[in-house]
């Protein structure tokens, strides 16, 4: 861990200013990932700007039943148990509760969760010489390494890391919008454009500018999101990152699927919105064959490596199981 300065600005303007004037500064929320990475020597900020006193810890309804707004500092535990979330977006509550441990969820924030970095072994431990995400141009150690937890969709030769968040998979399925403040004012980033695929710049995780502060996440009103579910497949019953996860919701009408929403976790560099599966399901009858066909459509382009090819079949099965569960919800 390198020496660093610490400040605790009184408002978001001051917070944004401190980061805008210092390229090596980082915002500090719950610290559950950032501090860990600093200890490992992966993140080396010269200044931590502690935003924990900013008034960003509210969950509130947006006017005119247009959705709800989640402050960036709402803790994962609080969000998971919030009555508006459990009633309207059960998938988000389930996703949050499937992640990490109670102690971590008590500290981890909504904004911080969006910025979680990959758990790729080759990224997380600087003893590994190759990692294009940590050290651009050094190569990808995982490509021919121990790649059991790595990506099968949307990866590049430069990086096959996955995004580790559960919460973000639910947000991707729900078409959340990330609200940010920067020196130039406020802007809104649709969740689909927030995280990036690795391409040739895997060192850039998101489209957030380094001088921008996440202030809130907006969830649009989705009446059928009450019929939603988060399914997580992992190596142990609790406290493990997803091998594969699925956030799913179905809009049903007379035994038919009017529309489907599906996002996958553990398979790509970003929460993976399964557009092909959604298209395949629209207008179909609620039946196992339709679910399987949708899963096959989504995974047709998947590519596995030495240790993770099982994820392709596992993802298909997880999609089928999640849809089956959602369809059976009251």
């Amino acid at each position, binding site marked *: *861990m390198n*020496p660093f300065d610490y400040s605790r600005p009184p408002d978001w303007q001051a917070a944004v200013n401190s980061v805008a004037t210092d390229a090596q500064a980082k915002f500090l929320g719950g610290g559950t990932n950032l501090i860990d990475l600093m200890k490992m020597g992966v993140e080396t900020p010269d200044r931590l700007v502690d935003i924990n006193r900013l008034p960003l810890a509210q969950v509130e309804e947006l006017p005119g039943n247009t959705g709800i707004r989640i402050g960036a500092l709402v803790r994962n535990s609080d969000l998971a148990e919030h009555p508006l979330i459990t009633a309207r977006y059960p998938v988000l509550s389930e996703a949050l509760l499937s992640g990490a441990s109670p102690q971590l969820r008590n500290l981890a924030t909504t904004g911080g969760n969006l910025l979680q970095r990959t758990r790729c*072994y080759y990224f997380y431990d600087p003893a*590994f010489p190759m990692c294009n995400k940590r050290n651009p141009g050094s190569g990808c150690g995982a490509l021919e*390494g*121990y790649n059991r937890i790595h990506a099968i969709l949307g990866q590049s030769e430069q990086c096959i890391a996955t995004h580790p968040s559960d919460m973000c998979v639910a947000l991707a399925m729900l078409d959340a919008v990330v609200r940010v403040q920067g020196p130039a004012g406020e802007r809104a980033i649709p969740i689909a454009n927030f995280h990036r695929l690795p391409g040739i710049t895997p060192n850039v995780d998101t489209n957030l500018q380094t001088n921008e502060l996440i202030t809130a996440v907006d969830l649009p009103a989705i009446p059928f999101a009450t019929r939603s579910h988060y399914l997580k497949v*992992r190596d142990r*019953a609790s*406290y493990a990152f997803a091998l594969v996860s699925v956030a799913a919701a179905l809009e049903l009408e007379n035994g038919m699927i009017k529309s489907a929403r599906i996002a996958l976790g553990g398979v790509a560099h970003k929460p993976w919105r399964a557009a092909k599966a959604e298209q395949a399901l629209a207008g179909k009858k609620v039946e196992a064959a339709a679910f399987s066909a949708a899963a096959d459509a989504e995974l047709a382009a998947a590519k596995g490596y030495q240790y993770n090819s099982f994820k392709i079949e*596992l993802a298909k099965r997880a999609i089928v199981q999640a849809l089956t569960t959602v369809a059976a919800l009251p």
Partner: protein
Amino acid sequence: MANSNILGPARSRVDGPLKVTGYAKYAVEFEIPKCAYAWPVESNIAKGKITAIDIKAAQTSPGVLAVLTHQNASKMADAKGLFEEFAEAHGEDMSQGIRNEQRAPLADDEIHYAGQYVALVVAQTIEQARHAASLVRVSYAPELPILTMEDASKAKKPKKKQDETIQLRKGNVEPALANQNIIRLHETYSTPTETHNPIETSGTIAAWEGDDKLTVWDSTQFVKGVQSILARSYGLKIENVRVICPFVGGAFGCKGALWPHVLLATMAARATRVPVKFHLPRKAMFTGTGHRTPTSQTISLAATSNGKLQAIKHVTGTLTSPVGEFVEVCGARSTGVMYASETIRVEETVYPVNVATPTFMRAPGECPGVYALECALDELSYLLQMDPVELRLMNHAANHPIRDVPFSAKHLKEAYQLGAEKFGWSKRNPQTGQMRDGNLLVGWGMATATYPAHKMSAAAKAILHVDGRATVQCATHDLGTGAYTAFTQISSEQLGVPFEQVTFELGKSDYPFGPVAGGSNSTGTVGTAIHEVAQLLHRALAELAVKDARSPLHGSRPNDIAMVAPGRIALRKNPVTSDSFTDILQRAGRDSITVESELKDPEENEKLAFQSWGAHFCEVKIDSLLPRVQVTRVVSVMNCGRIVNAKTARSQIIGGVVMGIGMALTEETAYDPKTGLPAIANLADYHVPTNADVPPIEVYFVGEPDYAFNPIGARGMGEIGITGIAAAVANAVYHATGKRVRDLPITPDKLI
């Protein structure tokens, strides 16, 4: 059946309040004035040479007191003797300490494995040390490392452990294994590298007084061993080295040997002339304090059609590092003792690779060995269409199969019987894939557990105070097992002093000798020393009493006197003539009386074989679509002689079962196949079972006290709980799914 006379009272831990309030002081929590902090620099290549180390930036970083490397350590720490001592061959005498790595840290420029310490930074604060360590620049001339058993077997001559007690042979297995007219099985089972991961990571504080007195606070399973090795390494008088370790936050074997960090802490303290604390980061626990070697075990069985074993052959390959000493002996005390087979063959081969040095891990050898054999037996039961319990009863060994002497106090048949009854085994459908709970596949599996009864040497000191309190001391250890409590109970019973008035002290090299807390030996070994010191105490009291005209025992011969009831000695033949401990001391004008037992070799009884036994029964449930195995029920019945404390003993077995569930389903330390660096090196990625992975576990004890083994009647039970459980789980997975996974851990990908 469960025999109440084997179960001691269920006492809560005497150190419980200290633990839950945070007052229990662990080794690295001692506050030593002026203490500096060390942080390591580790090799990120697995084989090669250091060509240069640039320490300038680290040396000038704020707070830094010293940067030790192979170029300067010997001189700075005046450690030439240490390097020489470590270069010499190390004998088998475990009482003098244990080294699994035959090389002093920073001895030279050679790199033998990734994670090897190549420098140590000492600074005033841990943050300064950690930062400065990141500024050390090491250049290497890397060579292609050998990382796997396959590559090692091609590359160099493997090491066979020559010991005849390990390479076993009873008759000739080959004719039966070649006989096409009987039932035969030939399969290979593999287990991965596993890492102990106690919550308290290893650590050492070293403080020198001048050049000839050293005190270390060390998280260890063997204070006397650390004392002995350090004294010899630095040429110090043994009494000038003190080792202190009142509590250990879990060990499981990784604190039994002396590892390089202990030497580094002492070298750093000598170089800087201030006390130095080196508390290992979690990552270093994956390379710096041992692990369980991966194993590849081929089992060949031959049996008659009614299930009588004609041959068992168990061929094991394991790994060690180029500087490693430790051998994981998988077959000798599992396959070599468990079943009455006509012929038995056990072979062990060790392959050196460029991976960190392995060590003991809970039930070393027996744990993977029993896994392989008990899976093979399960497979044989299906070939024979025979119930797995029946098959084991058919081949029950009343006598040691090779030595042909009876096992002492063996009650394994009762363990099978009680376990089957408590579990409801008779309701098992013998076909695979037939039992269901809704959409879930249900599987029931069982396996035998076994672990040898080990005996070592110990001595104890007892101090009886005139107010009736007693203090008993031995340089033994409590790894979190409940040893403090068990030894307080044994002291109370043997001395004849109420439990509440006994203080048992351990974890200091100042006390009489205690052996390594390993091999499930402590309760029996230290218990025997307590038994002996209690006899000495009663003798000393008798000698005072017979000389005291006011004592009812006045004029009697001390030989005719013994303890007859707590707190009283009396004539053996006429117990009414008695005197109380406190009256004797009071009348003699003594505040206290102190006795110490002698350290001697344990008495061996060659006419019997001593081994603990047990049986695990378990249920798993598996979603066939998303096949993560969930263990939903375990019944474990153990036969370990007398159980001193019913509560902490039950916890020990539960702990072993939990660790075995991890072995079966989740635990694996994976390495990068190219560089040999551990890919899994933290508690998020190394999957020990969480509460949600652990089902209700019922534990029962059967048998009788094994007084032929020692006067306490206890054979020890720290390890046996983990043996067999991975096989029981794997066998249940087969029963549920019809799929035999012979490669642990059984993660979801292996069942798709």
